């Protein structure tokens, strides 16, 4: 197990290097630069700015400078938010995104697995249809529809919760609901599908033949197998959700890091985009590793030597 973790971490280094390389050159290929604005700056000011931010150096030199910075944990200054470094922006925003994303994914996993299991056990009954109907709706309604609807009905009409801002628990409820609903829907469908398959498998039949009670079969044998596809879905989904949702953050005014990705790209804030990309890359790699480890625990067929 330790060897697996070590191997994966070593393997992550070239992956990250490729990610950094591709995104570094791609963002610079986009037309326009960080200092373009409605009023065109005089040439000498552009030259001064380029000098301050080292944009006057050849590209390979800038790339080298950037890599050297990353090795020292420095993502550089933001071109757009000039009073902050990229690291500061990421580490101020990430706890916020982690908080709502983390709670949302835990809730979604619990509720989704529960609903999916029930639907599988009551296959083709009204309960099943109800749950699957709900989950189909959850999947098809995008968050940019669900979030404004929630804030309009619960926030503006009923005045139960604030429609935006950050600070208290009450500010987190609506964004978490908006983030959780589609995830519940996906997880419920996944669980139901794999549970139905598992319930038909030979080892469950054997367990039944042994005379084990239904509850024990479900908890000890069926759920374990049925969760495998859910776990592989949850890895990248968690990585995605805890690194912030642009739509949810914008609609509810949440100071997470999701928006920096889009704002950084739109503003050609090279360092900010790069910082978020690298950070996102690390999180994805981390969660894929966690999924692999969980596979080893859940699936008796998978053993890491």
């Amino acid at each position, binding site marked *: 197990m330790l060897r697996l973790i070590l191997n994966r971490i070593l393997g992550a280094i070239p992956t990250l290097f490729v990610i950094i390389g591709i995104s570094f050159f791609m963002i610079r290929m*986009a*037309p*326009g*630069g960080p200092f*373009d*604005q*409605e*009023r*065109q*700056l*005089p*040439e*000498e*000011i552009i030259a*001064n*700015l380029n*000098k*301050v931010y080292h944009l006057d150096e050849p590209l390979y030199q800038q790339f080298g400078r950037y890599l050297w910075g990353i090795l020292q944990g420095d993502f550089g*200054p933001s071109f*757009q*938010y*000039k*009073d*902050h470094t990229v690291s500061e*922006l990421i580490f*101020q*925003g990430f706890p916020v995104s982690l*908080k709502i994303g*983390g*709670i949302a994914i*835990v*809730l979604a*996993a*619990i509720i989704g697995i529960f609903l999916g299991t029930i639907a599988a056990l009551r296959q083709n009954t009204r309960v099943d249809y109800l749950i699957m109907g709900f989950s189909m709706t959850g999947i098809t309604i995008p968050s940019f529809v669900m979030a404004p609807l929630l*804030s*309009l009905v619960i*926030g*503006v009409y009923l*005045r139960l919760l*604030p*429609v*935006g*801002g*950050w*600070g*208290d*628990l009450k500010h*987190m409820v609506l964004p978490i609901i908006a983030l959780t609903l589609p995830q519940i829907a996906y997880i419920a469908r996944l669980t139901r599908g794999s549970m139905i398959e598992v319930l038909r498998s030979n080892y469950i039949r054997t367990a039944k033949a042994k005379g084990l009670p239904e509850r024990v079969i479900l908890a000890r044998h069926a759920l374990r197998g049925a969760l495998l596809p859910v776990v592989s879905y949850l890895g990248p989904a968690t990585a995605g959700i805890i690194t912030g949702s642009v739509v949810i*953050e*914008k*609609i*509810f*005014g*949440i*100071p*997470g890091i999701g*928006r920096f990705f889009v704002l950084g790209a*739109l*503003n*050609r804030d090279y360092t900010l985009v790069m910082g978020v990309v690298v950070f996102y890359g690390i999180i994805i790699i981390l969660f894929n590793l966690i999924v692999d480890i969980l596979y080893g625990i859940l699936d008796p067929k998978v053993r890491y030597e």
Partner: protein
Amino acid sequence: MKINKIFILAAVLSQVVVNAPQILCAEKILKRGNGAEPQSLDTHKTSGVPESNILGDLAEGLLSVSSNGTMIPGVAEKWEVSEDGKTYTFFLRESAKWSNGDPVTADDFVYAWRRMVDPKTASNWTFIISPVVNAADIGKGVKKIEELGVKSDRKYKLVVTLNAPTPYFLSLVSHPCMFPLHQKTVETHGDKWTRPENFVSNGAFILEEWSPQLHVKLKKNPKYWDASSVKLDGVIFYPIDDRQAELKRFKTGDIHITRMVPADQIETLKAQMPNNYRSTPMYSSYYYSFNNTKAPFDNPKVRQALALAVDREKLVKQVTKGDEKPAYSMVPPAPGDYTPQEIQCRLSDTSDLVPCKSLTQSQREALSKKIFAESGYKQGEPIRIVFNTDENHKKIAIALSGMWKSVLGVETELTNKEWKVYLAAREKRDYELYRQVWRADYNDPNTFLILLKSDSGADNTAGYFSKAYDDLMIKGAASKDLKERMDYLMGAEKQMMSDFPIIPLYYFVENNLVSDKVLSGYEGSAMGYHLSKWIDITE
């Protein structure tokens, strides 16, 4: 067992987030929507309106603005202008203090202005200070910062020498980039001087908290010289770039003053909240620039025909619907000695020139068709209109395209581009027609007219090169007499309006919502200044 663990984890997580006890207090805190997250609170490194709004509350320049936008004494109690209009002497009030108690002296201005022109600062705003002697050369690195034409007596007298009489110089010194800086603070903390724990300012408020993408909190500055006029205990600026989200937060009482309103809901809001809806004419223009350097718009008659075919009344009433005023000049109307020079028309070859505005739309269209026929224009490829991605810009482009098609039979092709791509395309003059908005940087027609001077580089998006226009602008800039200067500028705009390098469409308005809780001090201001200093609220 595993499920239990997950429950425990969820319980722990939810405990972690139950924090920040409710604070109930009777303080007067004004909550303002402020568009985007401020790029910086360093007066020399900002570029937009959101930063100006915050800095206007945090700091104060030589001159300040009243609640209705007129210039009033700020740190300078009084000032004198020399006979030749080139030397300004400001006398600073001795009661002006920094938030740490230090006196605000003329040295603080000298330091700030030298820092702004210093190439190492790489400030966006050096064009504001360019009338000051040697400012341009210092920016180019030819001269030293000490050679800037500004001197202090080490106490309360500041003497500024200008290259040429610049009547709008007083408007320039009220711009945030010309505010004083506390030298010790800036030098001690470097890039981190704008953090709340370091920030030292001289305005009505001080920086209390800055949480990126969440809010900027200010509290009343007890050391401010005019603190007795300040009615609020604090101000919170929220960076809300989504207009729908801002509207919802206004409706729930979360913010008192919005920055904007969703364009498609203006009519509903006017009907639903007539007491809250505000529409303020701005010193700002929305226009289209022809690419004068390329066919077909190197032909003045084609330009004129297209400009006349536009039904501006219909555009503002049925398309933009935000109480905008149809525009026939580039410079918007404003109080003062300048009369905007509107497009003139000649109904027949023998008749006199009359303002096109006074004609009916059908007369204008008839004239447009006649001029278009004379121009000899033959439709080849469709004319390409380019604008940056935005619902409002798109609607306007579609409307114009329809008007030109129905009146002149001209085919157009609409292209929208993401903002930075649009800017790059415009700079290269790749297309035939560009949409453009210009918001005045200072209160003088020069801020608009300078754009179309031959040497304005990429700002001259139209690629308009007119010797006559340039000459009038140069004469205006050199003129000592205020009235004479205005005459030259008006002459320049008149010349330009007869050449049609651009199509003025409408004068901008600022539409927003103001809560019933705002009692006083929030008035219309064409430059968009709304200092929280003047605002009072109930709470």
